[in-house]
């Protein structure tokens, strides 16, 4: 029967044969769970008892929960500090590294190496750095030059930036590499022309480099924002004795979801939180794309 098909028909048969297993996979492992998560968010269910429909109760409970608003704020603080700071630092590094020839590859390796580490392992390393005297490296270093110790992870004010630092650190090398690729893609002739006209480097940066880097900047902003909004590994591992603490000051949305689902087993409530996370990611990405593409 296959022999009698035209070439085009044979292609269609092959195409669907190739796609059969993947389509099954995406349906069962991606689409069905997505729908299921939304469905569960309208139910009350603690894994053992019955699933009962509760309409919007989970969402109402969530929006009335002061912990949720604290967590929501924390999640955005991670985003609003993490993304601009890492964008600025990685651009400055890439801009200068791009102009360095001597041991260029070696310097690039130094900056990129943290990207290859495991977040959990590095969270523990940094956690050790942050310990009070006489354990922590940072406080020992401060003590050795006579500065009083700093309450990195103990303070409700400083714990969040302390947790954020290793997350930004690990992603920096990636952003530097992407920026350098973007810088190399700018045609040399633009710079030549600017040099002939005697334009200052500052003007070149603002009038040529940055506008032409826009696609790169859009990509890095969106990509790193998604990463910061989903922060979990670092927070969880740096605060295992009191996850998200002290006093929920470092707790991001994903950690709240994890605790609601797998410590309290309140599946419906946790599912509602995941739907909110999904909407936050969607809205933030769309706003960023709109602002950055248009301006």
């Amino acid at each position, binding site marked *: 029967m296959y022999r009698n098909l035209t070439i085009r028909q044979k292609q*269609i048969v*092959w*195409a669907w044969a*190739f*796609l059969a297993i*993947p389509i099954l*996979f*995406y349906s069962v*492992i*991606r*689409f069905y*769970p*997505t729908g*299921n998560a939304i469905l*569960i968010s309208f139910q009350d269910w603690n894994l053992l008892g019955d699933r009962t429909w509760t309409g919007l109760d989970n969402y109402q409970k969530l929006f009335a929960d002061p912990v949720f608003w604290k967590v929501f704020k924390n999640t955005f603080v991670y985003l609003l500090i993490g993304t601009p700071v890492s964008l600025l630092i990685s651009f400055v*590094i890439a801009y*200068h*590294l791009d102009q*360095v020839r*001597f*041991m260029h590859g070696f*310097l690039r390796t*130094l*900056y*990129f*190496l*943290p990207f*290859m*580490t*495991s*977040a*959990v*392992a590095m969270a*523990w*390393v*940094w956690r*050790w750095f942050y310990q009070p005297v006489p*354990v922590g490296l940072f406080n*020992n270093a401060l003590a*050795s030059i006579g500065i009083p110790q700093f309450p990195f992870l103990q303070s409700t004010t400083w714990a969040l930036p302390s947790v954020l630092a290793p997350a930004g650190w690990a992603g920096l090398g*990636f952003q530097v*590499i*992407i920026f350098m*690729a973007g810088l*190399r*893609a700018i045609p040399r002739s633009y710079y030549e022309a600017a040099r002939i006209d005697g334009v200052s480097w500052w003007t070149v940066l603002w009038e040529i480099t940055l506008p032409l880097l826009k696609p790169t900047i859009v*990509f890095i902003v969106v990509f790193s924002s*998604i990463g910061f909004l*989903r922060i979990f*590994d670092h927070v969880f*591992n740096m605060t*295992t004795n009191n996850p998200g603490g002290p006093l929920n000051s470092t707790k991001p949305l994903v950690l709240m979801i*994890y605790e609601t689902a*797998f410590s309290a087993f309140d*599946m419906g409530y946790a*599912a509602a939180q*995941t739907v909110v*996370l*999904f909407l936050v990611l*969607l809205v933030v990405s769309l706003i960023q794309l709109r602002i950055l593409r248009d301006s």
Partner: protein
Amino acid sequence: MTATEIRPTTDALLKTEAPKKPANMGQILRWTLLFLGGVAMVMPIAYMISTSLKWPHEVYNLKLIPDEPHLENYTYVLEDGRFYWWFVNSMIIAVITTICNVIFDSLVGYTLCKFRFPGRYIVFIAILSTLMIPTEMLVIPWYLMSQQFGWLDTYWGIMFPGLMTAFGTFLMKQFFETVPDDFIEAARIDGLNELQIWWTVAMPLVKPALAALAIFVFLGNWTAFIWPLIVTNSVEMYTLPVGLSSFGDEADVAWELIMTGAAISTIPTLIVFLIFQRYIIQGVVMAGLKG
């Protein structure tokens, strides 16, 4: 951007063609600052490795080079077998997932790129749309599914969510654009079937992309934390990140032992990087500009 535009960019990034200019003070200063910044970047890794080689009495001093470096911490940590299992678990899971992704993502990418059939566009958009759904939204249904089918605490349970990725599919589709249709036609005339054409003609032409995909998937699974944390509950089934997290959390574990565990889970990927550095950086650029 199309693939042909990308190629020179990635190559240019790796070349260090030098416009020869005499070094001046500004350049020396720039190099020195970049060097110091780079050294600061690797300090956490350096201290992790150095501390894993220290004796307890020198752990809390600031010296980077241990007075008497030794491997006792490694023998101690590996002795009771836990880190050994975790290492093996992580390796098995990362390797199988990587193989699966390399095969299926490229098969789907190839099909969507080179075949014309009704429904092609819909399938492409459907797969692409899954990129917008965060993993965290799926963990609850995955957990319920695993519970129902008895996948909790098994390799399959840890692996199944990542066996194919939309990101990899998209990446491979972009790269198959660079394979000329004439090659495929020629192979068809030679009497190869479509499966053979994909495997013996198209795949060898996208090896750099396959390498990049493999490295990303491996790294992603080697360091994956939240799903393995949820789906495993017996110590023997933990992966390295989950194991390290529980190990660090035990009461009274000495920091040099935690650093040793951290080093065990980090050193393999650092070695992979130092060997395949060129491919990895090229891969980051390709994936970044296309993804």
